[in-house]
């Protein structure tokens, strides 16, 4: 297994508030990792630091053998780490097609290529096939602001995946989505990313989603990683049960064991 991302001793403080403390993570190629933790536990801070939106106070982030600490998001994106957002970041008043066309154009063009026309037939064909993979082709000409939440989430993730990144970090892909739709949405996303052999880290609150799609779990609590283990193991970890899953999530060990088999399914997918 090849290590693609290595995070060592990452710290982030805002004044007296410690948002991240002693974060150490090694991510291997093709892994599907779930990031769990209560609100304010430091999950999004972690994603923000790795993707360059926040500058860590100290520590070390290495991607594909290269130090990426302190680089802005655009450079990190160009190196191969992309992300989606909890609140979809799309071009709201434009059509779905135009959103993706722009994503392709920015990804593909560099130097003098920026001065070539925005529209060309080959690019349009790529946009359309991408729309199909994410199953949002029927919304091709709809304005982004009018989309149902699930479609907007898919568009956001599809835009992040345009560059075919080595690592894609998804910030709560299923937040704001009804329970019935969650699995359908995740199936679409994970299938598309599996084809691209993308390494995925995603933040998730729903443990059923975690069990089904993820082979390994990072559990955050108060800015620290309190558990980094294969999914089945992590979900029965006492610390995780106390600080992350909480009391609403009553499960017996047998149920957790079922979860284990699901977890392995996720492993197979990867």
């Amino acid at each position: 297994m090849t290590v693609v991302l290595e995070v060592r001793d990452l710290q982030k403080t805002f004044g007296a508030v410690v948002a991240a403390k002693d974060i150490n993570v090694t991510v291997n190629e093709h892994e599907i990792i779930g990031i769990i933790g209560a609100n304010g536990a430091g999950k999004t801070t972690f994603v923000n630091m790795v993707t360059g939106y926040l500058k860590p106070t100290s520590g070390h982030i290495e991607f594909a053998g290269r130090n990426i600490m302190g680089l802005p998001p655009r450079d990190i994106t160009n190196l191969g780490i992309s992300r989606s957002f909890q609140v979809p970041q799309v071009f709201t008043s434009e059509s779905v097609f135009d959103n993706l066309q722009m994503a392709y154009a920015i990804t593909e063009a560099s130097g003098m290529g920026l001065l070539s026309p925005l529209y060309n037939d080959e690019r349009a064909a790529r946009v359309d096939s991408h729309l199909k993979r994410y199953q949002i082709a029927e919304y091709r000409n709809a304005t982004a602001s009018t989309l149902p939440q699930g479609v907007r989430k898919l568009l956001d993730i599809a835009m992040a995946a345009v560059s075919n990144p080595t690592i894609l970090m998804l910030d709560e892909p299923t937040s704001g989505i009804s329970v019935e739709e969650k699995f359908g949405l995740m199936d679409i996303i994970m299938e598309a990313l599996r084809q691209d052999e993308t390494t995925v880290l995603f933040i998730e609150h729903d443990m059923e989603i975690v069990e089904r799609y993820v082979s390994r779990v990072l559990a955050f609590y108060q800015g620290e990683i309190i558990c980094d283990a294969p999914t089945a193991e992590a979900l029965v970890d006492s610390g995780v049960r106390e600080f992350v899953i909480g009391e609403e999530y009553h499960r017996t060990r047998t149920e957790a064991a079922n979860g284990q088999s699901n977890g392995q399914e996720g492993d197979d997918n990867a």
Partner: protein
Amino acid sequence: MQELIVILVDGLVFSSYLFMVAVGLTVIFGVMKILNVTHGSFYAFGAYMSATLIGAYYSTDWPEFGGFLAIFAAALVVGVFFGIVLERGLLRFLYHRDEHIIVLATFAMFLVLEDVLLIIWGTDPYFAFEPMTLLGSVDIVEMTFDVYSLTLICLAVVVGLGLWLGLTKTKWGKLLLAVIFDREVSQAMGINVTVVFTVTFVIGAIMGALGGAYIAPTISVNPGIGVEVIVLAFAVVVIGGMGSIPGAMIGALLVGISRAAAVHKFPEIELFVIYAIMAVVLSIRPEGLFAPAQARKI
């Protein structure tokens, strides 16, 4: 030393003047997020109205000091009238539009009011020196200053303190701060934002008119004073941080004293020293000196 004191006193007087014209602008921006170009018209109308009322007052044989009442009456009349007419008659139809569009609408209104001013008062200058001569002059380090200008400093302090206390200590002020903090939430909490907007705009308009009304006795009131003042007030507000009252005060002091220094030491840069300060401050602190930075949640 003598020069230094002169610069300081001149600077303070000028700063007070700047604060008086800028504070209304910043209050309106703070609450309504509108950069109001018609503020220059409020100022000009305030000045003309004040000159007219002072003239009318001193043509009677009522007690001399009563002339000061004319100044405040002028500010009230102009501020209340234009405040209500503009907010209810124009701005409320534009709240949902882009901020640039609203600025332009107030710019258009400013152009209209410039001509209305000319139609009412004509092109000849107005003078209303009576209140100033009444207070006489005083010598500071062998330099003569007129007392009236020095009272401007007191007025600015009173207005500044009054607004600050009104905002932080009264129920109305707290409502205002809630609206400033989050318009939608305050609406949900049952605060009548419509009324808050109208009242704020009227208060801002009175401030602008008061600036003009109070300064009127010291200048020749002529067409074009509105233009000068609006550009100055913008600079002060932007430097201090738009929407911040302490910011307007610091901005006014910074600009006022620098300009007084420039006038005495390097008259050739007097005109653009203000904008140079503005450019420098903004390039270091984009939001101005006192405005809080806003983070965006993703």
